[in-house]
């Protein structure tokens, strides 16, 4: 967890593209909404793995959202069930279920279907939200935090020093952080 937080902090402070972190965040939201243990989740994770998105952010988002995502389950369940019960889509789902390998996607499960659709719909807003947050952080907050007394104090505490070290090791780009 510490390592993930460190990587996120490093990414936020490094010369990385804001879209990378934002995409990591959006993909994390999508994967958090889909229950694990099915081919869809594994497939999406593998697919995202090859793209230039911040994997640390993605994993951290999954970890954080997974804890709270249960609250949205009734809504996701309802959405998934609504989609699965559309007569127009019955032929498609029947085909999916009868095609080899595809049943392992578990798209006939209301939570998987609802999570996938809602995650897909939320991807773009999440991406732009993440991007805005990264830019805001970089423009408004980063320099203030870097020069704050609190950070300097934290740098002296062993745990935070460890984080800082990890951040430096991970990023090793931004020079103005501990200057």
């Amino acid at each position: 967890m510490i390592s993930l937080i460190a990587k996120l902090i490093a990414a936020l402070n490094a010369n990385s593209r804001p879209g990378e972190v934002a995409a990591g965040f959006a993909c994390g939201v999508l994967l958090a909404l889909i229950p694990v243990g099915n081919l869809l989740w594994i497939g999406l994770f593998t697919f995202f793995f090859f793209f230039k998105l911040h994997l640390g952010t993605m994993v951290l988002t999954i970890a954080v959202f997974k804890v709270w995502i249960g609250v949205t389950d009734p809504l996701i369940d309802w959405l998934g069930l609504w989609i699965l019960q559309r007569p127009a889509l019955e032929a498609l789902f029947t085909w999916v279920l009868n095609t080899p390998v595809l049943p392992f996607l578990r798209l006939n499960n209301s939570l998987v279907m609802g999570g996938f659709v809602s995650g897909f719909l939320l991807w773009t807003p999440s991406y732009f939200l993440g991007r805005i947050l990264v830019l805001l952080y970089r423009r408004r907050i980063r320099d203030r935090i870097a020069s704050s007394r609190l950070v300097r104090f934290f740098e002296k505490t062993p745990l935070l020093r460890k984080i800082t070290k990890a951040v430096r090791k991970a990023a090793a780009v931004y020079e103005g952080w501990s200057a």
Partner: protein
Amino acid sequence: MRKQRIPKIFRTPITADTLEKKILRRIFADSEKKFLTSCLRKDKQGRFLLRPELTKEELKRLKKLSISIKKNRGLLVSWKAGILAAVLIITAGFNYFLKNSLLEHAAERALQTVFRAAADMEGTELSLLKGRIGFSHLTIADEDQPMFNLIELGKTNLFLDTPRLLSRRIVLDEIACREIRFHTPRTESGALPHIADSEKQEGSGSEADGAISGVKNMGLEIGRESAERLLRDYRDSLQAPELIESIQDRSVSIQTRWNERTDQTETEIEDLDTRTRELMEEDISSIDTVQEIDAYLKKVDTLRTAIRDTRQSFNKTYDEYQDDSRYLRDSRESVESAVEEDLRFLKTAAGTFGSDAAGVISAAARPVLRDHLGSLYTYGERIIRIYKRLSGASEEKEGRFTGKRRAGTNVTFPYREYPAFLIKSFEASAGSQGTGNFSIVRINDLTGDQETWGKPSTAFFSTNQPFSQPNPEPNSELSSDLMIDTRSTSRDMMNSKTRLSGLPVEISEGLDILSVRSLRADSDNIFELNLQPDLSGTGKADINLSNILIDYSDTESVIGGALSGILSDVETLKINAAFTFENGTLQDLDLTSTIDGLLNERIGEYTREQAEKSAREIETAFYDYIGEELETNDALSEEISLQGKELLENIRAAENLEKALDERREALREKAEKEVEQQTQDLKEKAKEGLENIGKDLKLPGF
């Protein structure tokens, strides 16, 4: 000290456009942008160049910046994409260049090892995605006759539905093996050149045997230790044996004690008995003095007291005995309940015996394996430990996340179920089509679970190999269709249709009754059989005989003559048989043939002739017979008529006599009447006279 090199992207002059689009656009930290622009200067052409007087730190920072600029280029991670591409290229390369040749080589080696003769495989094709494995030609030489092939196979394919394997279903879409031939000649010898190698392999085989026996011994060792340990563990968990042992100990002590007590009591009672008898034997009449009386009384009292004490002692002893016996009774109950408890435990243990046994075996196996395998075992243990830790951690994490979520609703859609094992199509053929020496077997939808698959299993067999070797029939063919349906909804369990065409038939036995020595013909036959699940069913056979040749043993006999007469003009014969059966036994058989009409006609004619002849003979015999009879009848008639006449005469005589008698009788009657009247008259008169005399004598008034 090593000199800091200028990053590649800054080595050549950069145009303003390139700087803007390819460098500055990929820098997202303002401080870095500022730093880069501070490091650049413009040349005469307006291009940007690095300042020559850059410090080492600045160069270092520039290098890091150039790395981040490269990182921010494109959408895909280059190294990951590279690995993926490499994997894909290697897979594709292996797929196209190596896979088939490797398979071919491996298969040839394996076949050569098995058959100890040359094996040549051509046109090997393996597709893991399509689940296809096949070859176009395979020859395996005969070890004993190297210039001949043991077997030769043509195009052979096996298609496996690989995605279904993920659902633990073995579905073979197609198995086809064509042009199977045996004992075909070879152009070159099929003997393996290095037969010595095989001897060497045998040597290594014996080494392998030694290794196998070593492993077996090791297994026995582990097994023995495991069994002992497991029994020890289970014995420790049981209650009853310990309880029984403790109760047994106490029972033994109780028994010893009570033996002693019983002996003691018996002694006491014997003593009292002796004493009482002695007292009773004393003569009271001989007691004279007060003292003697008193002494005697004392003796009595003493004995009485002793008896009372002994009785009380006995009562107490009995109470103790009751306590001990109660303890033994309770002990038995506690033993019974302990035994029940142990039985319950053993029943439960039987369920977990497998896992316990596995655990104990692994524990027992550990030192043995460590001795035998050395460091290999230690590495193995480490790997297993790491794997367990990882899987445990992942399960824990998953449980932490998934436990808080709902399970969701699984919506069902029409789903095509597959049986656990299915061969959709199987085909094997021998020989070449059109050569008159071809056989083929096809089996479709072969599965043990037809209910799930929803189709019956069907089979087809056809061969046009010559049935008779000395004079092979060129157009002979045997083909058979078979359908087996074991589904609960099916009406017919089995249907079969077999065609036999161009089959020569020769019957030389059992035809003596028809005066036929042998029958020879060509036959085209169709046999149909329909079987229901209760073993009842129907069948049909159409037998077409042509080129019939009958060898009669006795044409002079009536049957032989008739049969030869009937069949002399017949060249083809069709026989139809229909039959039904129940519980496997034949119920009805209906046979019809095309010569039925001819047979009927011929038999009719024969019968008519015979009938006319018989009629004539009968008529003649009748007339002969009837003449004699008529004569006899005439004589008899005459005799009878004479007797009749006599009778008539007698009758008439009798009538006459009767008439005469009647007349006499009438006469007698009349005479009698007269006599009676006479006498009556006489009596009247006498009475009148008497009365008159009486009146006169009495003189009665009024008269």
